[in-house]
């Protein structure tokens, strides 16, 4: 029997948690695709960069020498995709010798404890 799911107008709070470096694996690029898709369905989205994920938004990426697409400029377009807020974790940045000036987009810096609090308030956490 076919069930009818009426999902029109349903809006959930999504949190996308990025924890992998950008080019060694495909995760970073795939999460970016998922964020775009969530926007197409008009969902409420926030993004957090933790652990090696903070390297995704490192400025000055220049990939012509490795024949890969530099997708870091795409993060600058996130505002246009109804992404409410972008966060980066303080401890992760510090352990990697990075500061706000190293990043390609403005972010709100949160401690690990604050990231945990934020996770508690979401309907859905997508983490790669």
């Amino acid at each position, binding site marked *: 029997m076919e069930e009818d799911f009426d999902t029109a107008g349903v809006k959930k709070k999504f949190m996308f948690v990025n924890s992998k470096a950008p080019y*060694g694996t495909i995760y970073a690029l795939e999460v970016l695709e998922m964020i775009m898709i969530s926007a197409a369905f008009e969902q409420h989205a926030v993004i957090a960069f933790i652990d090696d994920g903070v390297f995704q938004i490192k400025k000055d990426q220049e990939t012509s020498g490795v024949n890969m697409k530099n997708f870091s400029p795409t993060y600058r377009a996130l505002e246009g995709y109804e992404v409410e807020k972008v966060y980066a974790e303080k401890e992760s940045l510090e352990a990697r010798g990075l500061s706000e000036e190293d990043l390609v987009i403005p972010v709100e810096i949160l401690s690990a404890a604050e990231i945990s609090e934020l996770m508690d308030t979401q309907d859905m956490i997508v983490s790669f």
Partner: protein
Amino acid sequence: MALLHTVNKSPFERNSLSDCLRRAKNGSAVLLIEDGVYGALQGTSASDEISSRDGSIKLYALGPDVDARGLSEKPLIDGLELIDYAGFVDLVEEYSSVQSWL
């Protein structure tokens, strides 16, 4: 007989760099490639371990991987030399064998 060690994982995510440094003999070379180049950054939680081997082993990082990850303007470990793909080939030729730490 000296080995060329390559490390391709981020030192913040895996132990590959530590595992390598613990076993790399004096006179050998360590080349950081792919996500391994994050280990070339100075002033990180991982930099002391690799810095302490400067002088006893040769340290290299692959320039195109450093550039791709936006690290070209960041301070790198003292004594570490950036090389290109041709330099990689030269190292493979220079050392007796290649040990890849994955």
